[in-house]
């Protein structure tokens, strides 16, 4: 469940980052396009301004040429040379006049926008008198020449007196025109520089926004994405490590299971071989003894196989349960009755006698739990078996059960908060199995209830096991709505206390199924404590 929510959260983060990334990229694209538009506009305006300035400056040149041509017409000494001055004056006046109009009203053919500022319009208005004076003067000169009789050529000296006043008019107005035109050029220049400055501000603004966008991408997209990728890589590495660990544990499990199976199988087979060799010769008691040994070995094989197969069957699945109210005291008693002292290494081979061990059971008869009988028996068998296996012969073992004080009590635990819905809210009973054996090193406690896990000392040691017993206990206890944990200092002799909780069976559940139980139960096979 937590894994699923984790995946959903990862997907949400990925979606959010992807959205931010697309938004940021779109912003950059828009800003880049805007920047290009601004640059193109800027180039177009600068080009237009340059054209206007050039043409405006040309007006001064034309006005000077008009003055020169007019003067040349009246002061020229060679009559034949005056003709070109008249043509020049005519051409210059025409161009000068049209350009002046184009500057004020615009002319697409010349690339003049004609949208002047009020300041420029005002300046044009100021030079209008001088412009008109010069234009009138030049026009009069050309009219006078054009209207002269054919015998009086344009260059005839007789016409000159009539032209002089117009020339003087032109010359007198030209300085004002030039000054005014220079003012217009300066204004054009000033306005063009202003436009360039404004565009530069816009361009810098766009650049700043792009930079800000990049910074936001780095902060809101790249950094979280990098962290997310880093986390994903770390998760992958951890998953790989877990895989490797699990593979190593599985390998060790196969070795252990192999080892565990071979010995009882050999004992079983050898007993049958002995029976076969004995034929009818053996005494009935001897035959019975061998048969019992074969059966015991067969039981060991079956138990081990069942445990292995249970583990495989439960991989990723919840065990099937048939919970019912169970009297704990009688259940513990029946479990203890199944233990054979020889099987748990308590036999003295030379004498054939068993060293008894004190097993105290403190369970009040009223205690009833809601559990699956077979699964609870499995858990108890495993914990009691471990207590016997991992503690020295003769050391005491204690089994107790009492109402659990709180849901969070006890020492180090597994499966906290995994109570099933069906049982959450019910009172819990805590069952504990205490031994005085080698204990569990504290650093190995956290992984003790994982699959295939065996203590390091046991892998290299002589205590047999496959590393699935406690894992099965955890799976089964949690499936029944309880938790399991171990408390141990890891100091040899101080032993361990394995505890688990189960829901208490309510009075309604017990109903008529309740059965009487003894106040204190002891195991006949193991000498009870006084």
């Amino acid at each position, binding site marked *: 469940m937590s894994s699923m929510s984790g995946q959903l959260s990862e997907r949400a983060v990925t979606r959010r980052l992807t959205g931010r990334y697309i938004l940021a990229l779109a912003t950059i694209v828009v800003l880049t396009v805007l920047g290009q538009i601004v640059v193109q506009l800027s180039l177009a305006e600068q080009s237009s301004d340059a054209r206007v300035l050039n043409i405006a400056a040309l007006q001064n040149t034309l006005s000077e040429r008009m003055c020169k041509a007019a003067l040349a017409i009246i002061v020229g000494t060679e009559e034949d040379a005056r003709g070109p001055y008249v043509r020049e004056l005519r051409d210059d006046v025409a161009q000068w006049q049209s350009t002046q109009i184009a500057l004020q009203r615009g002319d697409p053919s010349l690339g003049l926008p004609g949208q002047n500022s009020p300041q420029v319009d005002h300046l044009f208005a100021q030079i209008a008198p001088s412009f008109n004076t010069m234009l009138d003067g030049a026009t009069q000169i050309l009219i006078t020449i054009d209207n002269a009789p054919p015998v009086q050529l344009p260059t005839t000296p007789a016409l000159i007196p009539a032209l002089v006043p117009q020339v003087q008019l032109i010359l007198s107005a030209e300085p004002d025109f030039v000054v005014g035109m220079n003012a217009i050029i300066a204004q054009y220049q000033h306005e063009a520089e202003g436009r360039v400055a404004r565009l530069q501000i816009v361009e810098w603004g766009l650049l700043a926004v792009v930079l800000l966008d990049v910074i936001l991408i780095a902060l809101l997209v790249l950094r979280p994405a990098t962290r997310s990728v880093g986390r994903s890589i770390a998760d992958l590495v951890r998953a790989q490590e877990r895989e490797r660990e699990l593979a190593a544990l599985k390998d060790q499990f196969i070795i252990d299971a192999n080892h565990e199976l071979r010995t*009882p199988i050999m004992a079983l087979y050898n*007993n049958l*071989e002995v029976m076969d060799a004995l034929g009818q010769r053996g005494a009935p008691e001897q035959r019975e003894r061998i048969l019992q040994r074969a059966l015991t070995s067969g039981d060991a094989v079956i138990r081990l196989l069942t445990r292995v197969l249970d583990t495989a069957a439960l991989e990723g699945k919840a065990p099937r349960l048939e919970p019912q109210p169970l009297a704990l005291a009688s259940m513990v008693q029946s479990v203890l009755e199944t233990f054979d002292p020889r099987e748990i290494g308590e036999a003295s081979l030379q004498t054939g006698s068993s060293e008894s061990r004190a097993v105290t059971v403190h369970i009040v008869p009223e205690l009833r739990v809601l559990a699956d009988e077979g699964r609870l028996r499995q858990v108890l068998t495993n914990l009691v078996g471990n207590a016997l296996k991992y503690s020295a012969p003769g050391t005491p073992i204690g089994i107790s059960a009492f109402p659990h004080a709180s849901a969070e009590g006890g020492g180090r635990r597994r499966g906290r908060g995994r109570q099933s819905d069906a049982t959450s809210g019910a009172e819990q009973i805590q069952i504990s199995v205490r031994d005085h054996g080698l204990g569990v090193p504290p650093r190995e406690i956290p992984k003790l209830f994982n699959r295939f896990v065996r203590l390091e000392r046991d892998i290299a040691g002589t205590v047999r096991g496959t590393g699935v017993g406690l894992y099965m206990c955890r799976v089964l206890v949690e499936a029944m709505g309880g938790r399991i944990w171990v408390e141990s200092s890891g100091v040899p002799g101080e032993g361990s206390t394995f505890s688990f909780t189960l829901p208490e069976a309510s009075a309604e559940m017990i109903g008529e199924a309740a059965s009487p139980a003894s106040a204190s139960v002891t195991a006949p096979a193991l000498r009870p404590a006084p």
Partner: protein
Amino acid sequence: MHPQGGARPRRVLLVDDDSALLAAVIDGLELVGGFEVVAASDGASGLEHFFVDQPDCVVVDVRMPGLNGYQFVRALRGDRETAQTPIIVLSALVQDHEQVAGLLTGADAYLTKPVKIADLVRAVGRAIELTAAERQRRAVNLADAQPEEWDA
């Protein structure tokens, strides 16, 4: 090697910490092989029995509390007086390196559980028949062999 009297059956010391297996193999060696069997449940008591009972052959498990099987074999092979004792390692450890380790300690044979009584009886018989020269030659051959030959 202990001198053998003509009437006395061969004596086998069986050392294994699994009581169920021990009981079955004791009966098997006695009934099928006709051996006299003494047994011990760990390496240390096995050594005690060895010096007390002076067996003609030792069958020893590997994983045992205290002195393990390999240590047991090395203890016998390392002593001039007991170096020629016929020894069979009987183990549930089936990996190649375990078998090689068992043979390198000086055992005459490495049998992996489960073993039929008849096979164990034959192995004990062969080990008892090994001469000191043959044992020495086998040890030299084993030491000279390459790992792949061990597998073969």
